[in-house]
């Protein structure tokens, strides 16, 4: 009876209840969806870091990371690799030679980390070969009589390997796309021009286009003007084992894009045997072993197992290799909790206010109920249930709406291309696929019920303090 009466009481003032329910719905939807977007971005970042950049575990000489000394290779590499092959949790191993150096083109240069890899083994530990920009080449698959280098898009832009060109073909492609003729006409005067950097190109285009046009079509214009010459030359220079400057001319094998400016700017991959030859190392030398596990969750356990197995080497799990990522994944859970608690606290104040009004409006009725024999426990329960019903309806509707929207956007993703540069500078992609853990929904449901209960305490206590004789006299 108390449940039934409380439920009916919720609908006594429909408009007011619907306003409260709507505010809870919007609050929960906003919170859950924002968490889903943040979670999606972080999951994508972790996936990208593990799949394209670092894999799961690294093994190196204990002193190597201090100053990347070329001599600090892994001793007895064959034996270590043999033991790793016998470790069940290890899916694949790839040895790398890593040397700091400079990449130079005719006009520009940049400091880079030259990574010598065995392409077939490398493919089994990271998926960088799948991130090639179409039309820029391949991952060392095509045989060449030249030395080849695999570089990131941002480095290619920095070294002017990627240029921006507006020619007749660009203009005709723009005309065929959805861009209005008037906008294309503004670009026609640039026909035949080459821009040496993305900044130069954007500066010129910005000068002729209206801000609205730039916002709407800027990305497409940039894509159409993007120009790359296959097998462009680049020189890599570095100090060999005898501290003598050495280097060679490399041709671009392919360009990758993983939406991470720092990694793209700093990484140049070349074949390990070529780099070993240039640096005075042997083919059996490696500075690092990159290990892929069957399951990333095993990283901590396996790295501790391998540390015992190879006490003379440094073994690092992905959280130690990239502590910022580890901090982010661990900290973000607490951030979500605080974020949701703030939203729920704001909702709680709304509910408290509504329930106080309810108690005030129904003073006479509550007095009557106490007079005819409804005890304090039941009065308290009735007020509490009304508050729980209000918050629960709003919460459930909010979660259904967020769940539907998360499902919808998790397959299509949300494009934040206007913030692309900022996202990529931090290693995040601007096309985010929201994602949420089912456990989060359960936690939020429990928190909503708790919010309803807590929000009812003060109004319910007010109701309990009513003197029935006095309450009955109110009009």
């Amino acid at each position, binding site marked *: *009876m108390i449940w039934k009466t409380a439920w009916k009481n919720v609908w006594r003032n429909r408009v007011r209840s619907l306003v409260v329910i709507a505010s809870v719905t919007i609050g929960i939807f906003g919170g859950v969806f924002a968490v889903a977007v943040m979670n999606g971005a972080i999951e994508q970042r972790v996936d990208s870091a593990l799949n394209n950049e670092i894999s799961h575990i690294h093994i190196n000489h204990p002193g190597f990371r201090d100053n990347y000394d070329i001599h600090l290779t892994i001793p007895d590499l064959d034996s270590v690799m043999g033991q790793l092959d016998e470790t069940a949790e290890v899916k694949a191993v790839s040895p790398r030679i890593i040397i700091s150096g400079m990449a130079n083109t005719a006009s520009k240069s940049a400091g880079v980390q030259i990574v010598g890899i065995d392409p077939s083994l490398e493919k089994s530990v990271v998926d960088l070969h799948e991130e090639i920009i179409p039309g820029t080449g391949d991952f060392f698959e095509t045989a060449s009589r030249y030395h080849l280098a695999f570089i990131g898009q941002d480095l290619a832009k920095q070294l002017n390997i990627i240029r921006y060109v507006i020619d007749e073909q660009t203009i005709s492609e723009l005309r065929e796309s959805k861009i209005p003729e008037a906008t294309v006409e503004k670009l026609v005067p640039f026909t035949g021009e080459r821009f040496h950097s993305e900044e130069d190109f954007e500066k010129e285009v910005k000068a002729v286009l209206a801000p609205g046009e730039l916002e709407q079509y800027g990305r497409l214009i940039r894509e159409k003007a993007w120009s790359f010459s296959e097998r462009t030359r680049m020189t890599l220079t570095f100090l060999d084992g005898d501290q003598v400057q050495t280097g060679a001319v490399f041709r671009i094998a392919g360009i990758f894009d993983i939406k991470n400016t720092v990694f793209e700017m700093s990484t140049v991959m070349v074949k390990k045997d070529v780099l070993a030859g240039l640096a005075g190392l042997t083919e059996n030398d490696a500075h690092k072993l990159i290990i892929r596990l069957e399951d990333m969750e095993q990283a901590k356990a396996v790295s501790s197992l391998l540390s015992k197995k190879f006490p003379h080497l440094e073994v690092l799990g992905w959280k130690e290799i990239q502590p910022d990522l580890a901090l982010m994944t661990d900290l973000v859970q607490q951030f979500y909790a605080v974020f949701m608690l703030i939203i729920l606290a704001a909702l709680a104040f709304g509910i408290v206010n509504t329930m106080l009004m309810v108690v005030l409006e129904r003073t006479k009725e509550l007095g009557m109920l106490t*007079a*005819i*024999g*409804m005890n304090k426990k*039941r009065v308290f329960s009735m007020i509490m249930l009304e508050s729980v019903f209000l918050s629960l309806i709003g919460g459930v509707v909010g979660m259904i709406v967020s769940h539907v929207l998360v499902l919808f956007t998790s397959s299509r993703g949300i494009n934040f291309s206007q913030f692309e540069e900022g996202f990529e500078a931090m290693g995040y992609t601007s096309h985010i696929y929201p994602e949420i853990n089912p456990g989060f929904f359960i936690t939020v449901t429990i928190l909503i019920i708790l919010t309803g209960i807590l929000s009812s305490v003060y109004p319910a206590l007010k109701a309990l303090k009513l003197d029935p*004789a006095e309450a009955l006299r109110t009009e």
Partner: protein
Amino acid sequence: MKILEIKNVHKIYNSSEVQVHAVNGVNLDFEKGEFSAIVGPSGSGKTTLLNMIGGLDSPTEGEIRVDQTNLAGLKSSRLIDFRMRHIGFVFQSYNLIPVLTAKENVEFIMNLQKWNKRERDKRTYELLEAVGLKDRAHSRPSKLSGGQQQRIAVARALASKPKFVLADEPTANLDTKSSENLLNIMEELNREEGITFIFSTHDQRVMKKARRVITLEDGRVISDEWKKKNGSS
């Protein structure tokens, strides 16, 4: 058989400036089956006295015993339970729960007392029939007239088979026809089922129907008259 004893009851309200002696040394006994009215002008103390009889307020001095139980000796929670089981209330402004139907209002107390559904339904329909509103069982109070709402309030007051029903100005908001109808129903319930009714009123029609009229003035009983069977004093 005495079901209610009021012994030297005083009620004094102290405000910061004045002291109001609302009930001043009242002594009364009520027998089972009475149909009595407490009358008097506004401020005479009749509602205060009725509230104390119903355990909604406590005397400053003196004692009120319902079937030998001293109400002042009961803790708050026991007192609420005592009211639920032994005292029926009818209020001036009906005070039905607006979101519940007539039937749900009548069975509300039985639900609190955890009656089983069959017995509850049986009793509810008996009472609705007694007040002539069985056909309006599923109507909400807002769909009923004032007189009908007050009849539902009477049915609710009788639901838990109380020792007596306290009716505070039950006809004050009703027109003549509805008042007559309500009083006839209560009189019939009193006559045929022996239910004790104690009214507080200044309605002449109630005074006329009552078999005992207790008059209060300035918190004191100034007369306590029993009528003869033909209705005269």
